[in-house]
């Protein structure tokens, strides 16, 4: 196995939240990401799934150092990123870019498509001539399926799918090694989702990219990922290869998520056992003791409340954080 591109170890991101106090605020830690670890090999796609509010977006931002990391390590190409100065972080970011969820909001309304795509290039390679920048932007626009003639248009003149293509082009212009896709298709119409996902797959092949693909859509994640990490309330629940996870989910939470995905066959769909999760996501301000999933888990027992499950690895390197995964 090649050396990992990115290593995340016991990453914690806590936000102070004011919970009371009139003059002097009382603060509590919101545990958005609470001890997540994973490796990412060059060219690999890791899908990160979970409900909204499980910390998957925060995880992506923390890897990029766009948010202050509370503790833990993010190692990029063998270099520890947390605690680096602004200049070093900037240098490292040249090879890791991000595609955002809301395509229109992530583009500056007062910049033309061409300027938006060229911006990272201007930041990192101010020595390039105008003509060279224009040439590269045009080339890339074609690669992401935009007409180079559209360089002078403003974001609001594009459709959602086209905006996302601009966002993707911006992330690709530096030829990064890793692209973090934060729900890149969930704001798009169903009809263009597949196109954008396929575009990402194609680009990944052409550029040899590694991807962190963050989404709540299990079907999309299945289509694009090599491995999948399931998050719940800022903690890892299950981490496995795509085949292993989708064919034999071990964690009760993953099973519940899977059972909610409709099967396009009415007979099977009706026959399929459905696991309905009771209750809401508990507050990350005050997570349950022991296993964070126990308040909604159909299999929860006394031990789940007392002890936090540790990682257990099955055959084929399928990692599960659950006391009762064998049952």
């Amino acid at each position, binding site marked *: 196995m090649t050396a990992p591109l990115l290593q995340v170890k016991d990453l914690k991101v806590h936000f102070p939240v004011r919970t009371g106090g009139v003059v002097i605020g009382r603060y509590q830690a919101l545990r958005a990401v609470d001890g997540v670890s994973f490796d990412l090999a060059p060219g690999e796609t890791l899908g990160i799934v979970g409900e909204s509010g499980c910390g998957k977006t925060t995880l992506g931002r923390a890897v*990029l150092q766009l948010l202050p990391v509370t503790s833990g390590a993010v190692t990029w190409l063998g270099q520890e990123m947390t605690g680096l100065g602004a200049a070093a972080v900037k240098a490292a970011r040249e090879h890791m870019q991000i595609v955002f969820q809301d395509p229109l909001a992530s583009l500056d309304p007062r910049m033309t498509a061409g300027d938006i795509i060229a911006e990272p290039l201007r*930041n990192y390679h101010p020595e390039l001539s105008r003509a060279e920048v224009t*040439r590269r932007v045009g080339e890339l626009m074609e690669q992401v399926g935009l007409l180079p003639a559209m360089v002078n248009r403003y974001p609001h003149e594009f459709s959602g799918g086209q905006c996302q293509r601009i966002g993707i082009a911006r992330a690709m212009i530096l030829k990064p090694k890793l692209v973090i896709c934060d729900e890149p298709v969930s704001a798009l119409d169903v009809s263009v989702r597949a196109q954008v996902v396929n575009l990402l797959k194609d680009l990944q092949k052409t550029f040899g990219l590694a991807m962190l693909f963050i989404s709540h859509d299990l079907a999309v994640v299945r289509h694009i990922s090599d491995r999948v990490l399931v998050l719940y309330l800022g903690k890892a629940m299950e981490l496995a290869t795509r085949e292993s996870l989708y064919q034999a989910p071990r964690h009760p939470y993953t099973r519940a998520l899977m059972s909610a995905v409709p099967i396009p066959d009415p007979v099977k769909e009706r026959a399929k056992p459905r696991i309905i999760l009771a209750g809401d996501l508990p507050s990350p301000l005050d997570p349950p003791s022991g296993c964070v999933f126990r308040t909604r888990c159909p299999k929860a027992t006394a031990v789940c409340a007392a002890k936090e499950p540790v990682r257990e690895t099955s055959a084929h390197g399928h990692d599960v954080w659950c006391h009762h995964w064998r049952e």
Partner: protein
Amino acid sequence: MTDMAAPDVPPASNIGPDAIEGRSLWQDAWRRLMRNKAAVASLIILGLIAFFSVFGPYALAWTYDQIDWDHVEAVPPSLALKHYLGTDSVGRDLLARTLFGGRVSLTVGLLATSVALFIGVTVGAVSGYLGGKVDQLLMRFVDLMYSVPLTFFVIILMVLFGRNFILMFLAIGSVEWLTMARIVRGQTLTLKHREFMEAARASGGSTASILIRHVVPNVLGVVIVYVTLTIPQVILLESFLSFLGLGVQEPMTSWGVLINEGAAELEITPRTLIVPAVFMTATLFCLNFLGDGLRDALDPKDR
């Protein structure tokens, strides 16, 4: 795997010789402004007023401070005496005085507003974008400045540095930037949490480049409207200071001063009020139209 980005890729032939040149927001804004008839007309009228204020006095037979000793009284408009718009109560040519006053008022308006614009936008954007301690410090300073009465502030300046014209720009500019800074800060705060600001940081933008490339263009629409409101305010403020004896002094004059004098003689010689008032109102109207035009021109959504 990044070696497929080898620098020796042949130039993409498919882009062709007619590769489309990138245009900037400014070029687009200029084109849109030129399509706005009211704005273009305002621009022309403002240009004419400025031109005549600067060069007009040289072409006239009388200068602004010259008293027509044969007629030390309000002379009605007369071609023979070369008082085309008559004289004021002490026999000075009204047209010459109005044009000369325009020089003073326009200079004060432009310079003081530029000072206010520059300081206000810089302080507001930096304060809003950086937040935290810097923001606290800058905004408390703004509050402090707000609490100092203008006249008091000007008098202190005069006492310290003696009376001069430049000081007036400084005094007025240093008061007008406060509101500007607050407006820009507020706008920046709302901008800061938009996703594209995060995208800009992720794509390696430094604080300075983000401020210049993303914050300033996005607050400009509001700022320009405020500028067109500030210029008239500054012109009036100048006449107020002059009235207190802190601004321009006789025989020097400005529109504000002329209007003040004219208002006093309204019943005897209404034209001493009307002439400078027409010039000033025309300027203010044009500024407002131009401001609206600029705001629309800077908004790409408004094609």
